[in-house]
């Protein structure tokens, strides 16, 4: 049996069920490795001692019928966890302890999983490098001083470094898929309405989705099966028939039509990415898929649209952080003074920038020119996909226009940072499912990912495509454990 922390989720579950490993042994292994990995700064809050207690409790009365029996899992610090501090990577929630549990995490605990800790992320999930977190940068285990992507950067780092067998993130414009791509891991953003948003600190309500992050496709399928549920507490949760994603997983994708959008060949994209994409197309063909050229003409407008819609919603969603009910408060002479100081000191620069963008695009006289315009373009972007899906079953693209960059490389240039999400953002705007799988390395030896975009509620097809391509690609991170 290989080292515990190197085992996949499915292997760990098998070993627990076959009583080769106990929940305590597994939990101990991940806790120990996590404690040795402080340098990565992946955790904001650990739950180690509680996790060990819970593992013991599980072992005393194990229930092997559960889907995640006694499996310790660390989650992005955007999910509210009852009794455990939840910060959203922000000073303004530095001391916030929820008295409630998000639906997604509750689904995990109901299936036997154990909370290992809360993982670092960009403040309110606004960022692509985890550099906007109040709790500091996160290191990419691939190489020192490399960003792990964002906003689920703590999640991707912890996952890639084997500090947690799987994890969950949230994806508003690429925050699961881009960090997965940067760390050689698998990340899936489900269809909007698939996973409940109840109890997840909101960034942009019409775009936010939680999703699984894992080291392989089969683990992602299982975790998605656990977290995706219809929830009456979320008015945008959709009641559709959810597959048994893991047991229905197949590598037989013969005859599936996969579209290649011409517009994703963007200017200045490194040739390695182009090459990787071509390789991916070849793999898909080898797996029996039919490759079809398609057009998504409004692709180039997706990012500008996103940078109106998301900040607009965020400016309103973040109005509740006002120092009155919870979280950080800066004393003020009067109410307005208190508000202004609290929000000025409590939010970081990127969050403030986006709140101001959002406030501006909604303000009187500019609403039609910006917000309404963006909503209309969003319609066009969605229609592009609707049209494409008349011809194909899924779409294959690169996940990101580049591999991971150095910490600090883009912090002074917001727009170049935003360009990172160019391939992932259209998927959120159209509410579609998308998965990023590791597909190879660039010249620097940094991982690159390929993205498979599906039809609404057809997570099964993109999982199947990813599963069959994963076999052909057979990618594996080569960790040096440089941080230990």
């Amino acid at each position, binding site marked *: 049996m290989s080292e515990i922390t190197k085992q996949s989720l499915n292997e760990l579950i098998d070993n627990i069920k076959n009583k080769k490993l106990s929940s305590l042994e597994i939990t101990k292994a991940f806790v120990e490795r996590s404690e040795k990995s402080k340098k990565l700064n992946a955790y904001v809050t650990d739950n180690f001692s509680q996790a060990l207690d819970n593992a013991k409790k599980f072992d005393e009365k194990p229930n092997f019928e559960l889907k995640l029996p006694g499996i310790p899992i660390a989650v992005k610090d955007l999910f509210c966890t009852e009794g455990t501090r939840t910060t959203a990577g922000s000073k303004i929630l530095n001391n916030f302890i929820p008295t409630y549990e998000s639906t997604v995490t509750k689904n995990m605990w109901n299936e036997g999983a154990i909370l290992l800790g809360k993982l670092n992320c960009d403040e309110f999930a606004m960022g692509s490098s985890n550099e906007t977190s109040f709790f500091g940068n996160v290191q990419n285990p691939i190489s020192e001083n490399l960003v792990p992507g964002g906003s689920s950067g703590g999640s991707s780092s912890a996952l890639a470094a084997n500090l947690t067998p799987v994890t969950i993130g949230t994806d508003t414009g690429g925050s699961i898929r881009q960090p997965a791509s940067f760390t050689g891991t698998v990340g899936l953003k489900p269809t909007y309405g698939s996973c409940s948003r109840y109890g997840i600190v909101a960034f942009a309500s019409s775009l936010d989705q939680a999703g699984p992050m894992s080291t392989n496709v089969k683990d992602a399928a299982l975790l998605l099966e656990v977290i995706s549920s219809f929830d009456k507490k979320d*008015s945008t949760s959709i009641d559709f028939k959810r597959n048994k994603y893991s047991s229905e997983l197949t590598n037989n994708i013969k005859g599936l039509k996969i579209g290649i959008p011409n517009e994703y060949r963007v200017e200045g994209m490194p040739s390695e990415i182009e090459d990787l994409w071509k390789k991916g197309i070849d793999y898909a063909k080898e797996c029996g898929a039919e490759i079809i050229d398609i057009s998504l003409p409004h692709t180039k407008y997706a990012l500008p649209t996103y940078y109106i819609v998301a900040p607009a919603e965020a400016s309103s969603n973040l109005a509740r952080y006002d120092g009155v009910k919870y979280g950080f408060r800066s004393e003020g002479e*009067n*109410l307005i003074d208190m508000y202004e100081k609290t929000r000025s000191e409590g939010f970081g620069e990127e969050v*403030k920038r986006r*709140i*101001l963008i959002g406030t501006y695009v909604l303000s009187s006289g500019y609403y039609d020119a910006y917000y309404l315009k963006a909503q209309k373009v969003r319609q066009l972007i969605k229609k592009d996909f609707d049209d494409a899906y008349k011809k194909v079953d899924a779409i294959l693209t690169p996940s990101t226009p580049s591999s991971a960059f150095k910490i600090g490389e883009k912090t002074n240039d*917001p727009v170049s940072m935003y360009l990172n999400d160019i391939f992932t953002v259209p998927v959120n705007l159209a509410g579609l499912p998308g998965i990023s799988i590791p597909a190879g390395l660039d010249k620097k030896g940094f991982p690159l990912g390929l993205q498979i975009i599906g039809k609404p509620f057809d997570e099964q097809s993109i999982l199947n495509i990813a599963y069959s391509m994963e076999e052909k690609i057979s990618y594996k991170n080569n960790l040096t454990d440089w941080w230990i």
Partner: protein
Amino acid sequence: MTLDLKTVKHISKLARISVDEEKANKLAGDLNSIFEFIEKLNELNTENVEPLTSVANTTLRFREDEVQSQNIREKILSNSPDNNEDFFVVPKVVE
């Protein structure tokens, strides 16, 4: 378009985020570069396009009129910055 200092200060006021002169200048610069990139949308004619608010292609789901939440005052006030057992407390409101 260019966002001038006055506008930056005005929207900061609306968003209840205090900015000093230096910050406002820096923000004006950042926001202008972002808006320059956003302006790309103006190339598109969207005259007859319906705005899309939500991709969830369905309508609002109803809840029954039932009282389910009990008195959870303690929980509600447990994270409050001011320690008062009955109320949220804020500095005096001046109109």
